[in-house]
Every structure is written in C-alpha cells, then in structure tokens.
C-alpha cells in the first residue's frame, strides 16, 4: 500500500488531538481566540479526514467537504483567532468575525452547489491531483478560495511572525519566540504545498499538511508553556 495515502489519517489524528487541547484550554481559561483556533483546527481535521476517505473511496458529499474545509475555510478561521488575539480594537475583530461567518455560510452553499463529474474520479490518484477534473468550479468559487486563503495565511502567519518579533525585540519569553516561529512555519507548510501543486511541482499536499499539523502543534505547546517568572527585590526609593 502506498504510504502517502495513509498520511491524511496521521494528519487527522494529530489535528483533532490539537483541537481538543486548544478547546480544553478555552473551556478552562476562556478567550475567543482559543475558540476560533479550535474551530479552525476542527475544520483542518475535517479537511484531512475527507482527504483520507477519498484515498480509499468516493462520495461527492465528502469531495465537497474536502474542498470547503481544505481549500476555503480552515486558514481563514485560524487567522481569525489570531486577529482576536492581536487586534486591540475589539469592534474591528468582531466586525471581521461577522463578515467571516456570513462569508462562510455563503461559501458552504456555493461549494455544495458545484456540480461534479463522479465518473471521472479515480480512487488510485490523490484527490488534490484530480479535483479540477471532477469538480466544475466557476470563477466566483476560485475567487472565494483566493480571498479566504489570502486572508487566512496573511493573518495567521503574519500574526505569528509579528508576535515572535515583539518577544524577540523585548528579549523575553524565548519559548514564545520559538513557538510563534514554528506556528508560522507550520501554517506556511500546507500553503506552500498547495502552491507547488498548482504549479505542477509535484503532489506534496499530503506531506505538507502533516508537517504543518505537527509543527503548529509543537509551536502551540511551546508558546503556551508556562514561563518562569523571577521575583526580584526592587529597592524602594
């Protein structure tokens, strides 16, 4: 059996464990950013689960699910979590969230209304290598993917890089610097994998998703590790 076809199962397991940890943290501590990251990770897991399913069977419902969560929604919801963490103007973050929710509903309706050529699907090929010939996508759908992916990648990766830079400049919390660098690298991995697929440089999507899940998970654990705090006696003036 081709090992490559098993990678989405590993990605799904890691991502769902990651999602449970993030959502548990939200249940204990609150914080809308954690809830949004948790939702984004569940979407990531649904995308890789659909990919795993499509490596061994076919269902148009699952193909639409793979496209909706895998291509459209995941990065945007993860990035929205970062927006809520970093943007101090709460109203701006909330307005963006409302826009994202409305756009998500629209995208779900749009993607699930795309016609498919079921007879063209070949189970022995990765879904990422053949979805263009199975799913008839129009210009609006492609634009939706670009807008969601651009917004998500920019906010998630940009936010992590910005956080890492701030902690590095202040020379504090090195775990958070490294954790955010890893989150940015992990988020870039599937984005780059997808970009390479589109340009015919080989099908690295399964690998890039697995690497992305592992690296983001490690980064999150590092960034949320309790930092040692030293008590120092300051001389009273």
């Amino acid at each position, binding site marked *: 059996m081709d090992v490559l076809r098993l990678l989405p199962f590993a990605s799904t397991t890691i991502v769902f464990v990651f999602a449970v940890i993030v959502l548990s943290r939200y249940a204990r501590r609150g914080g809308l950013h954690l809830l949004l990251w948790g939702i984004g990770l569940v979407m990531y897991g649904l995308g890789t689960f659909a990919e795993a399913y499509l490596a061994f069977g076919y269902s148009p419902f699952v193909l639409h699910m793979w496209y909706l969560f895998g291509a459209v929604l995941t990065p945007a919801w993860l990035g929205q979590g970062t927006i809520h963490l970093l943007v101090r103007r709460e109203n701006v973050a909330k307005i963006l969230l409302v826009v994202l929710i409305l756009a998500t509903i629209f995208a779900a309706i749009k993607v699930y209304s795309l016609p498919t050529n079921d007879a063209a699907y070949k189970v022995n090929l990765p879904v990422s290598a053949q979805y263009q010939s199975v799913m008839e996508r129009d210009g609006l759908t492609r634009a939706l993917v670009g807008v969601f992916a651009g917004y998500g990648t920019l906010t998630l990766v940009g936010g992590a*890089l910005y956080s*890492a830079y701030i902690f590095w400049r202040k020379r504090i919390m090195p775990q958070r610097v490294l954790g955010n*660098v890893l989150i940015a690298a992990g988020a870039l991995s599937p984005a*780059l994998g997808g970009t390479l697929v589109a340009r015919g440089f080989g099908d690295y999507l399964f690998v890039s998703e697995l690497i992305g899940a592992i690296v983001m998970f490690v980064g999150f654990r590092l960034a949320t590790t309790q930092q040692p705090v030293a008590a*120092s006696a300051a001389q009273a003036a």
Partner: protein
Amino acid sequence: MDKPPGTRKRTPRVPASFLYQSVVPIALGVMLLLLLAVIVAVLLSLFGLTPGYPPGF
C-alpha cells in the same frame, strides 16, 4: 499571600547571545519572504494570471 514591600515579579530577559540575536531575525525574514510568495501566488490567481489557487490546508 501578600508580597513583601518593594518586591515585584518581572519576566526574565533572555541573556545576550549572538546566536539568538542573529538566527531569529534570519528565520523571521525567510518566513516573511515565503509569506509574501504565497500572497503573490494568491493574488495572481485572483486576477486570473495563474491557475486557480489550490487547496492549501
């Protein structure tokens, strides 16, 4: 428990290290370039100059 007067907690600073001070900005710079590359790819696809942006996650 009350803290003794004149005592405060502060986050410890990272000790001065050439490796830390040089490797981190290089890593951030490389990833910033990769981020820009992805954004350019997305924009090109949005304007129809390249094939549609594929699934990325």
